C-alpha cells in the first residue's frame, strides 16, 4: 500500500517536472498561434563594409525565405561606408521591399551609405535628433606617385590621375543622387541639384523636406511595418550583427584608400602595404570631423 503511494508521488513529481519543461514551449506555441506573422528587425550599424553587408544580406535573405516573416524593419545607426557595399545593401533592401513592407527606423545617424541602403524602404522613421542625408561620395584624389622601385605593367596601374578620380566620384555621385530621386523624388521638396550638395539634415527638417517620412521611434516603426503587412498580432525577431565584427570594422575604418608603402628588407625596395586599388567612400558622417570640414 505504502509502495503504491510512493509510486503515485513520484509520478506527480515527474509530471510537474515534465510540465515545467513543456509549458513554455506550449505557451510559445499558443502565442504564435495567435500571431499573424513576424516582423524582423534587422540592425544596420557602424561603418558599412563588405563584411557588415554580408551579415545584413543574410538576415534579409532569411526574411525573404522564411514564410512567417511578413515585414522588415531596418534599425539604422550608421554614417555610411564604402560605396560598393552600400550599393549591395541598397539592392538587398530593394529585393526585400519588392516582397514585403520594409520600414526604416533611424536611431542616431542614417547618412550617406546608410541612407543609400534604406532608400527602397516604404517609410523612413527618424527621431528629432537623428541626422539623415549626406547624399554624396568622397574619395582621395590622384594617387601618390609610385616610386621607380615598384614595377608596373602600364601607366595607369595603381596610378589614377586626379581627372580620372574626379570622373569616378562624379559617376558614383550620379548613381547615388539618381537613386535618391527615383525612390524619394515624389516626397522630396528639394531639387536634384540641392540633393547633390550632400547636406545632412536633422530629423524635423528631414521630415519637412522629404528625406524622411515621420518622426517616430523603433516600436512605432515596427508597428507601422506590421500594419502595412496586415498583421494585427505579430511577433518580433531581432537580428543583431555578430559581436566579432568589431575587430574587422576597426581595420576597415583605417583603410581610407590612401596608398601606403613600406620599405621591405626582403625585396630591398618599397612594397605597397594596402591593396593598390582605391576605395571610394560614401562619407561616413561624423559630426566632429565634419566641423573641421574634412568629412
Amino acid at each position: 500500500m505504502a509502495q503504491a503511494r510512493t509510486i503515485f508521488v513520484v509520478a506527480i513529481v515527474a509530471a510537474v517536472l515534465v510540465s515545467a519543461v513543456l509549458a513554455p514551449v506550449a505557451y510559445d506555441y499558443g502565442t504564435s498561434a495567435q500571431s499573424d506573422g513576424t516582423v524582423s528587425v534587422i540592425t544596420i550599424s557602424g561603418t558599412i563594409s563588405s563584411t557588415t553587408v554580408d551579415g545584413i544580406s543574410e538576415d534579409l535573405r532569411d526574411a525573404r525565405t522564411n514564410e512567417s516573416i511578413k515585414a522588415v524593419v531596418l534599425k539604422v545607426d550608421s554614417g555610411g561606408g564604402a560605396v560598393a557595399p552600400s550599393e549591395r545593401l541598397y539592392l538587398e533592401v530593394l529585393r526585400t521591399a519588392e516582397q514585403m513592407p520594409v520600414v526604416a527606423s533611424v536611431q542616431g545617424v542614417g547618412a550617406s551609405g546608410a541612407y543609400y541602403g534604406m532608400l527602397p524602404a516604404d517609410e523612413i522613421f527618424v527621431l528629432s535628433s537623428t541626422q539623415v542625408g549626406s547624399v554624396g561620395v568622397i574619395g582621395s584624389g590622384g594617387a601618390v606617385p609610385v616610386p621607380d622601385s615598384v614595377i608596373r605593367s602600364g601607366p595607369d596601374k595603381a596610378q589614377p590621375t586626379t581627372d580620372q578620380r574626379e570622373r569616378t566620384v562624379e559617376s558614383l555621385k550620379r548613381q547615388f543622387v539618381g537613386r535618391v530621386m527615383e525612390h524619394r523624388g515624389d516626397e522630396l521638396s528639394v531639387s536634384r541639384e540641392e540633393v547633390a550638395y550632400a547636406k545632412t539634415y536633422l530629423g524635423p527638417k528631414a521630415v519637412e523636406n522629404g528625406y524622411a517620412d515621420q518622426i517616430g521611434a523603433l516600436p512605432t516603426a515596427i508597428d507601422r511595418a506590421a500594419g502595412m503587412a496586415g498583421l494585427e498580432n505579430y511577433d518580433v525577431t531581432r537580428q543583431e550583427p555578430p559581436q566579432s565584427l568589431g575587430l574587422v570594422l576597426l581595420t576597415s575604418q583605417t583603410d581610407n584608400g590612401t596608398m601606403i608603402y613600406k620599405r621591405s628588407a626582403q625585396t630591398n625596395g618599397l612594397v605597397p602595404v594596402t591593396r593598390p586599388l582605391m576605395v571610394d567612400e560614401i562619407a561616413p558622417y561624423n559630426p566632429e570631423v565634419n566641423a573641421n570640414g574634412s568629412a
Partner: protein
Amino acid sequence: MEARDLTGPAVAFVVVVALIVGGAAVLPIFSGGDTPEVSNLAQQQADLDAVRVTAADETGEITMDSDATGKTVLVDKAHENEFSDEKLSTLVNTLVENGHEVRFVTQEQARGSAWNESLRSADALLVANPTQAYTPEQLAGVRAFNDAGGRVLLLSDPASSSGSILSILGLGAGSQQPSSGGPGLSSTFGVAGHSGYLFNMHEYQHNFKSIYATAGRGSLSQDVDRVVFRGSVAVSTDGGQRALTSIEQTKLSTTRRADTYAVAVQSGDVAMVGDTDFLAPTDAYTADNEAFIGNLADFLVSGQKTGNAPGPPSTESENGTGPTLPMPTL
C-alpha cells in the same frame, strides 16, 4: 535469439528509411524546388548612360601672337610660393619656345638690393601663391617696376590658412564681401581677390569645383570661348577689365551667392588670375585653356617697360617713383 528473428525488423527498417529519404528526394520535383526567381535589380536600377562620365577633349596648341622677342620674365620663387614646377613648365616652355627668357628669383636673390636688381633687368614678373610676406622694400620695388611699365601677373588659388595672395602682398585685400569696393580694398594694383572658392553645381566639368568661365574683355580673352578652372578664386578689379567671367549660377563658397564672378582681370600692366591649376599639363589643353595660357604669355612679353626701374635705393628719385608711394602696411 536467432539471427533469423532479426530479419523481419531489419527489412522493415530499410523499407521505412528508403520511403522517407526517397520521398524527401522526390518531393521537390512536385513542389518545384526552392530556387528563387532572380531578377537583375542592379541593372534595372541603373541608368548607365546617365552615370557614365566621359573624359573631356584635350586639343589645341599653346601659341603666342606677340612678335616681341628677347623679353625677360621673372618668376618669384622667393616667397615660399605654392606653385609647382609642373604647372610652371607649361608657361615656361611657351615663353622659351617663343624666344624669351625666364628667370627664377630664389630667396637669396630677393634679399636687400638684389631684389630690385633682379626686377631691373626683367620685363615682367610672375607671382603665384606666395606664402611668405613681401618686405616693404620688395613691395616698393614691385610698384616702381609696375609703374615703369613692367608687367605683373598674379596667380592665386583659394587661400589656404596662410592667407591670400593680396594680403601677403600687403594690399589689404582678401575681402569677405563681394564687390564691396571700400577704400581700404582699392590697391595700387587695382585688383583684389575674394575669400573662398568658386563652384557650380549646375554646370561643371566632372567636379563642382571645376567651373567654366567665358571670355570677357581685353587681350587676355582673345580666341577664348570658355576655359575650365579647378578650385578658383573670384577676383575683382577697380576700373580694369574682366577678362574671364564664370558662367551663370556659379557660387562663391563663403557667401553661396550665385553670380558671374570674374576669375581673370587685367588692370593696365597688372593681371590677376584666380587659379593656377589651368596651367598644369593635364589641364592646359582642356576647353580653351591653351588659348588663355597663350594670351597670358603674350601679356607677359607685351609690356613697354621704360628705364631701369626699379632704381637702386640711392637713385630712386631718378625714376620719379618710390618716394611718392605710401609705404604699404603688412
